[in-house]
């Protein structure tokens, strides 16, 4: 005990203690946390591959042990979902410093991404990549899924309600995106895969808040995804959407295109015939 007492004041002691504490709580959490997430089989092999990829591509910002540096946050506990979202949408690795990581060309193949995700998942417990249960859009119709009181169509409509309350203020009513403060922005949701939307909700990337399962249930998230899928694939009943940006783009169109056509006609009308 004397040795322990002597080392109690060692500078590293706090770090060791925190690490121990994290391990215990993390372990406890991973034991107690709902297990729906562990869908993909994690092999020691893929973790090793992931680590290699991590060291080569990510460590310069996130640190050798993903503990975070001045230029990148810690990845301990962000979970596989976060990696799958950030790398799967091409936001990571970051091309250069920016107020916000833009969506980009994806730099890794699916296997590499899942290996990276598997490695980061081993650093600390966090949300896992969702399986297909809640990321498959609901097919509209009058039938009801098991355990649901609403018809499929009504569930999509409810997804719309949840979307408008929780998401539309940043992402716009049609998921066309919107501005945040100081150059940050909420990206467009059109063309984003259901899995990535789900992952964004559970991990809260960048400025986005987290919508955990106690906030919006997995079924609720599925409804939101289904609503987005429905409006993404719906017929353009009125014609060209002008980017679904609301009255600004409509006004611009009226000023430039409509007025332009009419003035052109007026000029033709006032010109002497040959």
């Amino acid at each position, binding site marked *: 005990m004397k040795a322990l007492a002597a080392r109690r004041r060692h500078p590293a002691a706090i770090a060791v203690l925190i690490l121990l504490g994290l391990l215990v709580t993390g372990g406890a959490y991973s034991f107690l946390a709902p297990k729906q997430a562990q869908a993909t089989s994690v092999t020691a092999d893929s973790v090793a591959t992931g680590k290699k990829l991590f060291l080569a591509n990510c460590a310069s910002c996130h640190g050798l042990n993903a503990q975070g540096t001045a230029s990148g946050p810690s990845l301990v506990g962000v979970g596989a979902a976060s990696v799958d979202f950030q790398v799967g949408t091409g936001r990571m690795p970051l091309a250069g410093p920016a107020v916000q990581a833009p969506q980009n060309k994806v730099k890794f193949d699916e296997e590499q991404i899942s290996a990276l995700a598997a490695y980061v998942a081993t650093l600390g417990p966090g949300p896992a990549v969702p399986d297909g249960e809640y990321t498959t859009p609901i097919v509209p119709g009058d039938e009801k899924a098991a355990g649901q009181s609403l018809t499929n169509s009504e569930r999509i409509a409810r997804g719309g309600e949840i979307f408008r309350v929780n998401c539309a203020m940043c992402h716009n009513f049609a998921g066309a995106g919107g501005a945040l*403060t100081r150059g940050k922005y909420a990206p467009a949701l059109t063309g984003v895969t259901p899995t990535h939307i789900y992952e964004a909700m559970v991990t*809260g990337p960048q400025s986005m*808040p987290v919508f955990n399962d106690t906030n919006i249930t997995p079924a609720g998230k599925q409804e939101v995804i289904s609503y987005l899928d429905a409006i993404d694939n719906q017929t*353009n009943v009125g014609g060209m959407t002008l980017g679904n940006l609301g009255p600004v783009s409509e006004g611009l169109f009226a000023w430039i295109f409509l007025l332009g056509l009419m003035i052109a006609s007026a000029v033709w009308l006032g010109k002497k015939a040959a």
Partner: protein
Amino acid sequence: MSDIDTTRPESGSELAHHQEQSLDRFENPGLPPHIHRAADDDPAAGKRAEKQVATLFGLSMLATLVFMVAYFAIPDESTFYLPGVGLSKTQNVVLGLSMGFALFFIGIGAVHWAKTLMSDEEIVEERHPQRSDDRSRAAAVATVLDGGANAQLGRRPLILYSLTGALGLFALPFVLQIAGSLGPVNAPEELKENIWDLKNNDGKPIRLMRDPEMTPIKLSDVTNGSVFHVMPETLQKNIDENHGVLEAKAKAAVILIRLEPDLIKVQKQKDWGVDGVVAYSKICTHVGCAVGLYEQTTHHLLCPCHQSTFDLPDDCNVIFGPAKRPLPQLKITVDDAGYLVAPQGFMEPVGPSFWERSR
């Protein structure tokens, strides 16, 4: 402006006055020689123009025909892929294009006709000064004066005064009708009311419910970085009765966020929250839009209408934009069942400013 010495007479000649005034000026050369159009000299060109106009009118009739057929033939659910637009509703596109062309071709047909075949010789119409001549003006004055004298208005002032009074007053009932019946007059009091007030729940603390699901929220549900859009438990009554739902929501919308307790700068803010979980009115203090945009990294709340930015860790003070006042905080605590409740209502009116707000 009698102090202006108008060197020119205020008469009909003033129109032309200026141009004659100075000697060293160019003369108006008069209408330029008329230039003929092709159809004026060449019967073939005229015939061609006639054919073109007739063709345009014919195309219009064709488009109308298409509209009539399409109206009955195209089923509601029919869609097709329109380049540049995507999957489009056949009905809207075909009906619109046919109607548009039916109109458009009439238009360009008529204008083309006017331009090519109708006379393009310019016609000169004379203008006359706008003012009436002096005799007419004098006659008008005389008529009015004579009429007034005939009515004896000047001699019998009693009639003049009573008439003025009657005409001045008769509109008042209409004004009163509108002013008195458009809306209630207890506005300043009612604007301060809110269904978060405990009197709406028999004095018991009111639970925070998820919007729109209306399910209660446990403290542990609110993890770091997450945002809950909240309505009071008391709203359920309005929903069940289908009465006053939107009116209640317009003042009751609340946003619930968990912050690291260390981040919170203001003691009141800390005290009114639980373990860093704080609740604020979501109604902008500017003009009342929903301030829903929460940036997890900066802890700013942004209003999408006019970009008022509220700093959450600093008691939602305004750091940018047109709003002046911070968002009002709702005091919350945890009840016996572990759910978040508001033990008191808002301590100030929520939403946009009004005159009597602080009275």
